């Protein structure tokens, strides 16, 4: 298994995440897709870290996880509030902030 394999896998996962964000309406699924993108990036970091033989990439992966966890906390809280008011978790429903 070379670095190349990991990077290709990371790209595939990232693309799946992107399409998930763009196509799915359910906010939970969008969230999961975002997590997928983050973890795809993590995978690339770790792979390159291993190739270069230093710990920088590993450390950043931990940072990303921490930020992702924090983001999920805030995001899910917003999501729950939206669901309570609108009885729906669709991301297209709350579109009042516009021209």
């Amino acid at each position: 298994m070379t670095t190349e394999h990991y990077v290709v896998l990371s790209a595939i996962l990232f693309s799946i995440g992107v399409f998930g964000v763009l196509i799915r309406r359910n906010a939970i699924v969008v969230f999961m897709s975002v997590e997928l993108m983050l973890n795809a990036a993590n995978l690339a970091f770790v792979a390159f870290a291993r190739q270069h033989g230093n710990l920088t990439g590993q450390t950043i992966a931990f940072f990303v996880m921490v930020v992702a966890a924090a983001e999920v906390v805030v995001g899910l809280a917003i999501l729950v509030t939206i669901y309570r008011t609108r009885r729906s978790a669709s991301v297209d429903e709350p579109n009042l902030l516009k021209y």
Partner: protein
Amino acid sequence: MNLTNSLTSFLGSATIEASNVDPTVNLPVAASGVFSFMWLLLALPVLGSALLLLLGKRADKWGPIFAVLMVCGAFVVGLFLYFAMLAESANDRPVNLHMWDWILVGNFEAPIGMQLDQLSMVFVLLITGVGGLIHIYSLGYMKDDPDKRKFFGYLNLFIAAMLLLVTADSYLLLYVGWEGVGLASYLLVGFWQYKPAAAVAAKKAFVMNRVGDVGLSIAIMLMFVTFGSVTFTGVFDAAPGASESTMTWIGFALLLAACGKSAQLPLQAWLLDAMEGPTPVSALIHAATMVTAGVYLIVRSGPIFDAAPAARDAVMVVGAATLIFGAIIGAAKDGIKDVLAGSTMSQVGYMILAAGLGPVGYVFAIFHLLTHGMFKANLFLGAGSIMHSMHDQLNMRRFGALRKVMFFTFLTFSSGWLAIMGVPPFSAFYSKDKIIEASFSVNFWGGLAALVGAGITSFYMTRLWTMTFTGKARWTEDNQHPHESPKVMLFPMAVLGLASLAAGFLLAGAIETWLAPVTGFEEGHLPISSLAMESISLTFVLVGGAIAYLQYRRGVPITPPQHVSALTVAARDELYGDAFNEAVFMRPGQWLTRSLVFVDSKAIDGIVNGTSAAVGGLSGRLRRIQTGFARSYALSMLAGAVLLIVALILVRM
């Protein structure tokens, strides 16, 4: 209190020969002794006006008396300075008192300092002397005015500004005084501002003076650019070395300034309207002092006009034209103050004419200025006394036979009448005839104008005198009860009456000696003998007076006759001065401003508004991108990221 007596008895003893004195070495020395107190001249009236105007109603009781005391105090200071000056030899007389530095920028410096020389000295005595008398007179004249305190505050302000004007040691400081008297004139002409005519007249006087003031400011700027200095000594030292064209420009700018302040053609129209102010104001500001500031400016700037013959000739032409112009107006007007205003214009014209003759005439310009200051103030105070007793009636067609009811006023007024006509041996016989002679020695037409002017002067003054004091009474008893004025008004009239009779006799000869070190003096050369010249001008005077007396001694109709010559019609309308201004300046000015407004609103605003409308429309379209759908934002972010990456890759390749 008698200005002339004190002035002249000592002038007579001066022994310096005019021809021995070289004006160029007549430089001021630093003030010491009594002269170091000359700031008191300015400080007293400034204090008076500050207290009266700032304390408000608290000063109502003692304010007017205080103002009178301040001016009389300034007069006493002036006398002390005068005696101190007499003790010096003629070349050591000018003194300079440096007070502080006003502006110091780069190599430009404008010090604040007072310069007192023989020329300033006569002005100081005239301003404080006549000013003091008119202050006293105003105590009676303005007795019942509710705003008496304010009036005296303004009068003191005027005295302070006028003294600053004549004692300044630089053109810049003179300009401060110049504007100060303009302000005081505005405030006092419009003193009864609830009368629309007075408010309009004040504004008119101020605006027309502005035109002249622009001339003075241009002159000062030109001086700074040319000489790098605006002090009198700095400018006059450098003046002979400057190019003639520059000096001509400066001379014309100064002439414009003088025309504005002294109501000379073409800026004469404000003076007749300014008669809306209280009569003491007309006497002090619009006859004796402020309107002569232009003469002072030109005589003071002698070294500039020495180097600019064209500007000097223009001064002469303006003076000659105005003296005829004013006299014609005076001969047709029916309001007593209007006649005197026309007369003032004409007499100041004489002074300007004399000032335009150069060293031949400077001395006589100032001589006539002094005698005119006395007899014209006297005449105005007499007119004020008549108005005071006639319920503010101005129309001479409503006067007549006032000799019987106001005998004292009749006496003082008659002395002014004799003085202004130039009947020997009274004031104008000496001063005006000297101007006529000097004019003939330089330019025949100038002399002719002065000679004819003397005839017309005699005509209109006799007309005024006859219509007012002789014949049958044309006033009616129902609302007018002519009576003699109170003593506080009669006293100044008496002093000025005596002064207007004696001033010419006392000052003749001495004034040349006194002023020559400052202004220079040359004897003019007449083709005929002086006695013959005097007889000719006396003939003009007598003929003019006789015509008027014969024409008006039987009285005049109460309504002005309508079938009169075109000249009379024109003169009643002030020779169309206002119409001219309206047609030449006001209408085109309005047209210009309207077209500017049009260009501004259509073109300038069009560009600005067009730009903003374009930006607004464009952003209205751009706004549509903000749909509110989170996923479309995500798509645009993706597109942006892809674009960036593609760009990076392309750059790398």
